[in-house]
């Protein structure tokens, strides 16, 4: 049995030999720090990350070789129609992953730790969005490479291809605000995964895999105007070149790109403040 009183009292003569920072971290340091951690969290879990890639490649194969034969795309080979669609839908699937990631951060206390630190609130959520944008970019680069390996060809100049990629990256950035908000609102990764089902109508009722004209009229109204169709068609038009784009899709790349950008702007304006608000005190 110990006789000493186990209660401890601080010794005012000693101090932990650590300086206190003069001022807290700025928005940029915070966002980059959070982003770096989130990117590392993903790429240092290669099983999950690589599995995602393999899954994407598998779906691409299935569409190209299983469904592709039954889908008619006038004036363009199906593989050339499909691959830009696939790259575009990758934006939504990356968003689903970021919803789950945000819900995990909330659940495992990472957000609480961040919110107890003297850092700008908006920088915390910005860091998350930045990281998800980087991850989406890696994903769509891989999809593009797999697409080329599967026979996708384009005669468009490199500048058009880069514009297409840039548009997809920007769309990933814009959409992520909404997905992060959904993830936080879901509260836990399972619920966030469940909410991910919302992605499917947008993915499939779009021009991504089949021409919208093959759908019933009422569905076409949605399919041809929803944001993913704009992004997919812009990407497709950039790779087809304007002449072919107008013939196959009805409009030039610029037409679709501007509409895509408007959608992106709307997503950012609406969802960025809502997501940032969620990081305030309850």
């Amino acid at each position, binding site marked *: 049995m110990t006789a000493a009183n186990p209660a401890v009292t*601080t010794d005012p003569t000693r101090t932990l030999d650590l300086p206190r920072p003069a001022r807290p971290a700025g928005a940029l340091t915070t966002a980059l720090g959070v982003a770096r951690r989130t990117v590392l969290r993903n790429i240092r879990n290669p099983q999950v990350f690589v599995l995602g890639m393999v899954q994407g490649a598998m779906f691409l194969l299935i569409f190209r070789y299983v469904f592709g034969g039954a889908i008619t795309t006038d004036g363009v080979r199906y593989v050339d129609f499909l691959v830009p669609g696939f790259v575009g839908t990758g934006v939504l699937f990356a968003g689903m992953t970021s919803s789950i990631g945000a819900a995990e951060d909330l659940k495992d206390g990472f957000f609480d730790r961040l919110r107890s630190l*003297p850092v700008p609130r908006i920088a915390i959520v910005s860091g998350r969005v930045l990281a998800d944008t980087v991850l989406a970019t890696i994903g769509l680069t891989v999809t593009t490479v797999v697409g080329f390996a599967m026979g996708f060809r384009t005669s468009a100049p490199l500048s058009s291809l880069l514009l297409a990629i840039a548009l997809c990256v920007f769309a990933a950035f814009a959409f992520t605000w909404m997905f992060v908000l959904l993830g936080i609102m879901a509260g836990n990764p399972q619920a966030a995964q469940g909410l991910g089902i919302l992605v499917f109508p947008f993915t499939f009722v779009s021009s991504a895999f089949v021409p919208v004209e093959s759908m019933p009229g009422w569905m076409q109204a949605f399919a041809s105007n929803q944001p993913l169709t704009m992004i997919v068609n812009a990407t497709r038009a950039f790779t087809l070149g304007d002449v072919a784009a107008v013939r196959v899709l009805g409009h030039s790349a610029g037409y679709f790109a501007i509409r895509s950008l408007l959608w992106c702007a709307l997503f950012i304006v609406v969802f960025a403040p809502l997501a940032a608000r969620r990081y305030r005190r*309850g």
Partner: protein
Amino acid sequence: MPPILEARGLTKRFKSTQALAGLDLTADRGQVTAILGPNGAGKTTFIRMVATLLLPDEGTLTVAGIDAIREPDKVRRAIGLAGQSAAVEGAMSGRENLVLVGRLFGHDSRQAKASAEVVLDLLDLTESADRLVRTYSGGMRRKLDLGASLVGAPELLLLDEPTTGLDPRSRNDLWDAIRALVAAGTDVLLTTQYLDEADQLAARIAIIDHGKVIAEGTPDDLKSKAGNDVVEVHVADAADLDRAIAALAPLGAEAPRVDRPTRSVTVPVERGSSQLLEAVRILDGLGLAVSDIGLRRATLDEVFLALTGRPAEDDADPDADGPATTGRRRRSKRAAARPEKSLT
């Protein structure tokens, strides 16, 4: 200097639950203050409020003299939070985790590295510093989480149930780490549902239940508040237990409590040593073999039971099997893993 923490009349309601119902608490500098209470008592709500993660519905709250409601940013510079779940990144090394949080506290990259080094050394984690945290044990993760809350050299460290779910050895290890910090001059506010944890670490303990402080003082104050000393008898033969209970019952100020696995009977008594002698005479007269008998102060478990009418660890222990006779019994189960300690 203002107290490190001053809370007055804090209330918080979540839908149908009144999490805090007028909580008052003052924590002085230079010590560990423990908030002790069962699950759902409002401990976590309170500590999240101090950590500026939650706003109270009513009441005032100052941390190191700063108004936590109006100037949360200033409070954030004065606190470090380690929550219930170790909020460290498994895909980063221990060192990378600490450097990241150091940068967020505002250190430049060189200072963040230096601070991480000091903290790793303090917590005895230097050897594992470059391993990914997902390879750490639960205890090491908690220690690292504690370390992450330290790299900004906070005035007040907030620990929300720092050892919940840890095995006894990791718990002792973490207790040592917390003691080292306190000795180095950091004030600590911790919540716990473990009475022995509060007893081990804290100079002041506030017992909360249903969102209010129901008792407050040093561990000794609280033990005397429950009033009675306790005669504790361990009989040598389990078959004698019922006879011992019946024989000792008339001595007690309250009914005897029995803990069958350890073959012990405890009787709260009002006149300590004379009643201990009486107990010895009674048991001797009956010819009962006694393996141990003694007089001791009430434990905090007993205090909690006396104050609230129920054991402190209600529903708290996930591996508790079935309803226990008293709060004492669950404590005994845990205590079995560690040598019993004197609480005087």
